[in-house]
């Protein structure tokens, strides 16, 4: 079948799929943006398994009209970031929950709800909503990001005007077996300001979560999230970031469990001397599919980017990594580093990686490496010879393997939260 015909079919399927879906109502400008997104989506088409970008992860569960039903998840563990002094905000099945959220006021920080912002005639969000999502489309089409712009019903809009110490900690609760969540957070960090965002949970039976974060000159954004034990859910996330001169972007994701997770990020490094670090650690067991898809664009001088991804897989779990560094003409002195590694604890599991470099500047230092391997027998014997059981030794070596990714978290208290959680999950696994 010819390309044109395939595309035609794709578009027909998309318009059929979206036929009954109305975009949410808001202010005129917001309606325009959403309407524009819907039109873009209709001409782009929803992703299909044969699309190059979805070669290793079937999008069908993400694009189906109904989410796969998935029992509510009862989390019997203390919240991951409970020990962190933060502004706590809760969403239940994709809806902001006032009762379980702290007072949103804080100095240097303005937090609102997406639908309030999109209903107001005048709002700063007007200048931001969809701008970075659209920019990301130039690199690679991300129709589900466009879908998010058209259909997101809730989320936070956060403006940061100062160095804010207290993180915002969002907990997503999944209570409804059929919740189909489309959430959008829009974050604007002004010149010299800094902000930390924490996220926990998977938010719904199916979730499509997007974050647009605009980091101005000299500003800093820190992001640490965990995608927890809610196994049956399907989750898709996008981070769209603009990283300006001398600013810093840092993001870390821990994933354990999850039948289907795809985390996409598009980091646009567009000001000189900026830094973008993104990392992920994941532990997959059995019916587990985890995909990290990263695209970093360097369009300024003397910038640094780092991607550190580690996946531990067993019992047939599948880990995917697609990571690209694009260094545009003139982006001299770019320092780009990318590592993706899979640790397979048995022969049934699989790690697939597609690292890519595309460089149009001549004075850059970019490196990428991808490895996949089994547990190091020498190290295993060394630990066992000291009396550590094979299981515990395997756990220690699992932590050892993930360490490089976890070390990307700067804040020691937060990184301890992540480590403790990991250790707990590993030890629980043994109990099972």
């Amino acid at each position: 079948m010819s390309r044109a015909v395939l595309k035609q079919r794709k578009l027909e399927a998309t318009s059929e799929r979206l036929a009954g879906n109305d975009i949410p109502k808001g202010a005129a400008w917001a309606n325009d943006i959403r309407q524009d997104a819907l039109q873009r989506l209709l001409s782009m088409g929803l992703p299909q398994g044969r699309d190059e970008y979805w070669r290793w992860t079937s999008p069908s569960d993400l694009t189906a009209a109904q989410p796969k039903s998935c029992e509510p998840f009862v989390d019997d563990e203390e919240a991951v970031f409970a020990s962190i002094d933060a502004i706590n905000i809760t969403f239940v099945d994709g809806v902001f929950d006032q009762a379980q959220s702290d007072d949103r006021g804080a100095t240097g920080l303005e937090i609102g709800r997406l639908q309030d912002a999109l209903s107001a005639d005048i709002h700063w969000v007007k200048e931001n909503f969809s701008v970075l999502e659209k920019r990301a489309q130039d690199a690679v089409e991300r129709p589900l990001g466009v879908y998010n712009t058209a259909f997101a019903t809730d989320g936070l809009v956060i403006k940061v005007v100062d160095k804010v110490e207290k993180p915002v900690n969002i907990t997503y609760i999944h209570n409804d077996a059929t919740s189909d969540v489309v959430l959008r957070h829009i974050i604007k960090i002004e010149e010299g300001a800094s902000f930390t965002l924490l996220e926990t949970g998977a938010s719904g039976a199916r979730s499509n979560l997007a974050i647009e974060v605009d980091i101005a000159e000299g500003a800093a954004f820190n992001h640490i999230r965990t995608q927890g034990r809610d196994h049956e859910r399907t989750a898709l996330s996008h981070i769209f970031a603009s990283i300006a001169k001398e600013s810093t972007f840092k993001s870390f994701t821990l994933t354990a469990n999850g039948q289907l997770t795809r985390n996409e990020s598009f980091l646009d490094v567009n000001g000189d001397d900026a830094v973008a670090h993104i990392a992920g650690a994941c532990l997959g067991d059995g019916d587990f599919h985890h995909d990290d898809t990263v695209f970093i664009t360097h369009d300024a001088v003397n910038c640094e980017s780092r991607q550190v991804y580690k996946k531990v897989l067993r019992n047939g779990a599948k880990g995917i990594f697609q990571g690209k560094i694009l260094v545009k003409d003139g982006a001299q002195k770019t320092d780009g580093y990318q590592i993706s590694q899979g640790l397979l604890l048995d022969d049934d599991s699989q790690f697939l990686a597609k690292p890519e470099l595309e460089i149009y500047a001549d004075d850059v230092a970019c490196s990428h490496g991808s490895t996949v391997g089994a547990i190091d027998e020498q190290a295993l014997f060394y630990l066992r010879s000291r009396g550590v059981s094979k299981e515990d030794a395997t756990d220690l070596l699992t932590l050892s393997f993930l360490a490089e990714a976890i070390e990307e978290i700067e804040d020691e208290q937060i990184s301890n939260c992540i480590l403790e959680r990991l250790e707990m999950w590993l030890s629980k696994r043994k109990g099972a």
Partner: protein
Amino acid sequence: MLEIKNLHAELEEEGKKILKGVNLKVGAGEVHAIMGPNGSGKSTTSYVLSGRDGYEVTEGEALLEGENILDMEPEERAAAGVFLAFQYPVEIPGVGNMTFLRTAVNAQRKARGEDELSAGDFLKEVRAKAKSLQIDADMLKRPVNVGFSGGEKKRNEILQMAMLEPKLCILDETDSGLDVDAMKLVSEGVNALRDENRSFVVITHYQRLLDHIKPDFVHIMYNGQIVKSGGPELALEVENNGYSDLIAEVEAG
């Protein structure tokens, strides 16, 4: 303490025979040195005793206090009291030395039905023992053996030994890579552990280690067998004349 009887072992994959009938008896509280040319099977003996994968025991047994340890998992042997100070200690990034030590100590205590050591007691003990080996706080915090110098790695092995208090300590070329001062330090560490209920098998190429750790018996291993045993004077003989005379003697039968 340890009795090795007619031990034969070969490489599992290649079927290459390496140990060809090792016999050795180590009494409680004794120190035995094993010397021998490169490739004679000294490290292999230590690996087979501690349970490393890749070797197949085709004949013979190794009894620790009367119990055959060759069928046990490595961790079971450790709990039974076997300790091997590695010729090449392994680096484990991302796992703190301290975490590793505590995990090991508690795993062994648990296997023996003892209570875990409290964090406080453990810390006190580690600090005291580390200090006597001149291992500083920084080395305790760092990932296991990562970026340690050769000598630091060996000292770290002895620290583990001191913490685990094994019955049978096998030291595989612990002296290699040590400077004169470190050699003294390590030897003192070993000597401090000497006890009437603890035995040592010290694999070495050099007399100088045996100046510090005085052996009761010295054995020469050659081509997968112990071909000669004697007192400390045997080590001096090797030091002065090398192995050629000894080997010629053996080959002549």
